[in-house]
């Protein structure tokens, strides 16, 4: 029997039989399906990545208006494209650590104020030019200078000066930041020749794939870079991204075998897809969360009792069950969960408590007029339904909520960050500091809860400069509790990234730090 198992393992490792067949035949030998899956993963890993083939993905989040300029990337397809043609200095690994890419070595001064990145030698851009530290400097300049319209501008603001020293790229910060390498892993910061000043949208970088065809909103085709510096990445010969924004069409394309993987599977159909032949579902918990946000400086939300009343008036478990169909975890009214390094697991979980909600509501002295919650389809998938559930559970606590449905078009410019109470989402950040600095620092542009707390700001800066992990964890824990108990954030749930994958695809890694293996699917997956 052992021989048979070994034989099957070898066959699955080489991709000669399907997963279904493997599990079935292992079952016949008395091996449980769970065990068989583990064995399969091992066997595949032992056999190593297979080279060659044409990997196709059907992806949401592509428009005819997309460009290949890293500064302009904001949705999934541009994000994947950047990972195909470019490399960042460092990356965030699935374990939440910093991994070296174009930087061979990262070091900091003891006060975490000056950071040095040793730039890898012998790396070539797609246009044949060698990578130099100067290119790195120019890239960072383009994302941080005064004319910048980069999505990374916000995180570059803490930089005081940058310079090249030999083969080192060095950054000096205005205030110390122990998390700087995480910021440098931002996907906008792909290193381009001369920083991409002359032609930002050329799609030329040092990455594993070279642009073949660029049709924004339709498809993007890439072929393997024969001179890629990292042999462990870039297994398939070519990668094609088809823009399929319609969820049903995406599923049909996966099931009819026209694409190997699709992102953003609707939780409602995830179980059905998982049961279909030849495909499976990969679900990764991540830092993305769905929120209802209140402006703490605006009546009636300026009363913390009213805020607490609303926080207690929400049935989180029920929402995870009904809106996410279990593909997610409950939130705790703070933007941080276990996907972040230095997360404090001991913070008590808030639950639905209509009595406490009613008590706080009474204490707040609210006049009983309906509280208007603005919501739209685009706020997050299932936002309308979630708001309706919220309305019902709040009603049970005697809190009158009125839903106002806003058009999706213009929601982000007219409602979010403007109206005092609305639904929204956050895709999360790799580290706590970045999440808090982006949306909870009093001076942050996207402080969408109008959270202005001197003590909190001070702790945030203190934690940022703190190199001792224990002390940092303690600070972050206190900050999280503060937001949870006093902030304007109602966070019912953290959503999983749900990807539909063909059984032909091997090498999937569960990565909580970003969607679809943090965008690295194209260079890390292979076809059996």
């Amino acid at each position: 029997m052992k021989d048979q198992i070994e034989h099957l393992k070898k066959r699955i490792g080489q991709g000669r039989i399907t997963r279904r067949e493997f599990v079935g035949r292992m079952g016949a030998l008395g091996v449980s399906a769970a065990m068989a899956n583990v064995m399969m993963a091992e066997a595949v890993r032992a056999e190593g990545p297979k080279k060659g083939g044409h990997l196709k993905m059907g992806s949401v989040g592509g428009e005819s208006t997309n460009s290949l300029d890293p500064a302009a990337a904001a949705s999934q397809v541009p994000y994947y494209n950047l990972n195909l043609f470019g490399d960042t200095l460092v990356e965030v690994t699935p374990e939440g650590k910093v991994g070296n890419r174009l930087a061979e070595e990262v070091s900091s001064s003891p006060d975490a104020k000056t950071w040095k990145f040793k730039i890898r030698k012998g790396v070539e851009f797609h246009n044949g030019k060698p990578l130099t530290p100067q290119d790195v400097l120019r890239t960072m300049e383009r994302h941080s200078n005064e004319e910048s319209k980069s999505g990374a501008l916000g995180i570059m603001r803490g930089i005081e000066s940058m310079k090249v020293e030999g083969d080192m790229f060095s950054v000096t910060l205005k205030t110390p930041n122990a998390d700087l390498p995480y910021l440098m892993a931002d996907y906008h910061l792909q290193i381009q020749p001369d920083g991409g000043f002359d032609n930002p949208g050329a799609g030329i970088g040092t990455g594993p794939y070279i642009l073949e065809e660029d049709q924004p909103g339709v498809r993007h085709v890439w072929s393997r870079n024969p001179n890629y510096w990292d042999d462990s990445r870039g297994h398939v010969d070519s990668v094609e991204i088809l823009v399929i924004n319609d969820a049903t069409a995406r599923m049909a394309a996966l099931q009819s075998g026209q694409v190997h993987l699709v992102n953003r599977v609707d939780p409602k159909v995830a179980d059905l897809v998982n049961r279909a032949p030849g495909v499976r579902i990969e679900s990764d918990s991540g830092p993305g969360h769905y929120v209802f946000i209140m402006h703490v400086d605006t009546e009636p939300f300026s009363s913390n009792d009213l805020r607490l009343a609303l926080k207690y008036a929400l049935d989180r478990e029920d929402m995870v069950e009904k809106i996410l169909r279990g593909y997610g975890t409950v939130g705790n009214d703070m933007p941080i969960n276990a996907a972040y390094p230095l997360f404090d697991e001991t913070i008590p979980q808030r639950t639905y408590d209509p009595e406490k909600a009613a008590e706080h509501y009474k204490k707040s002295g609210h006049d009983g007029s309906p509280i208007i919650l603005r919501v739209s389809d685009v706020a997050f998938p299932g936002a309308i339904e979630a708001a309706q559930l919220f309305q019902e559970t709040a009603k049970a606590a005697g809190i009158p909520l009125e839903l106002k449905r806003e058009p999706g078009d213009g929601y982000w410019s007219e409602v979010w960050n403007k109206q005092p109470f609305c639904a929204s989402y956050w895709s999360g950040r790799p580290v706590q500091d970045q999440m808090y600095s982006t949306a909870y620092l009093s001076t942050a542009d996207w402080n969408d809860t109008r959270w202005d707390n001197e003590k909190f700001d001070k702790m945030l800066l203190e934690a940022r400069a703190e190199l001792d992990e224990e002390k940092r964890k303690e600070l972050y824990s206190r900050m999280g509790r503060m937001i949870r108990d006093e902030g304007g954030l109602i966070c019912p749930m953290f959503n999983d990234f749900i990807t539909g994958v063909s059984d032909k695809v091997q090498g999937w890694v569960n990565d909580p730090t970003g969607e679809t293996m943090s965008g690295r699917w194209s260079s890390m997956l292979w076809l059996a």
Partner: protein
Amino acid sequence: MHPVLILVVQRIALGLLLLFAASILIFAGTMILPGDVAQSILGQSATPEALANLRAELGLNEPPVTRYFNWLFGVLQGDLGTALTNGQDIATSMGRRLSNTLFLAFWAAAVAVPLAIFLGLVAVLYRDRWPDKLISGVTLASISIPEFLIGYVLMYFVAVQLGWFSTVAMISDSMSLLEKLSVIALPVAVLTLVVLAHMMRMTRAAILNVMQSAYIETAELKGLSAFTVIFRHAFPNAIAPIVNVVMINLAYLVVGVVVIEVVFVYPGMGQYLVDHVSKRDVPVVQACGLVFAAVYIGLNMVADIVSILANPRLRHPK
């Protein structure tokens, strides 16, 4: 000059005027929409600095009237400009999308128009008997079901279950004509079902109308077969309303198929326009609007002219 020629020239001049008016309307429309292109490009990640920088770069700080006339001046010189969002040349990227749209519309029309007219003739021939009722029933049912639903149903049974055709109708230059036709088979089928009823019913009604005439009775009394009577005597006299409805449906096939494009992932004009409207990319919206308006105006003009040519009384006015 021949009166028909004068009429054509008049119509073309009027069409151009209409196009100009349409361009003003579209421009005004995009001004009313909330948010601007800079806000839409940056979306949730907009910081005030990035917004200001982008606005300056795109020239959005100039007054709208100036922007409109700059655009109009360019168009009159044949320059549609570049997209604000990704800097691509509009004429090139739109040209590709337009040729895809026309390709799909052409094949849908090539199937639907002859089929609709033929079914209309058959329905007249078997008026009030079961073939007539069957044809009307099926076509009316298919026009009443939302097109995306027909699309999904066909996709599920024909593509996913049977595996005959592709669910993704993405055509590219490297494909042969046969491959392209196989790929667009499903959207063509759906579009045919959607436009069939309208044209079929109009053909049926128009011919039935003519069938009341005395000369049809004469033809019947001459002993001509029923089909010859309909095809040779009734159809030519019913052509004007039929051409009108055919043109309306052709225009629909060019400008109105965005839902089908989304469902079948077809790289046509509809999706292209919607993407740019949602990003407030005015030059592209203007260019698409112009093309769509030109298609409508052009096809309606053809319908008018054919109606006139088909009618001796209009052809030779006293």
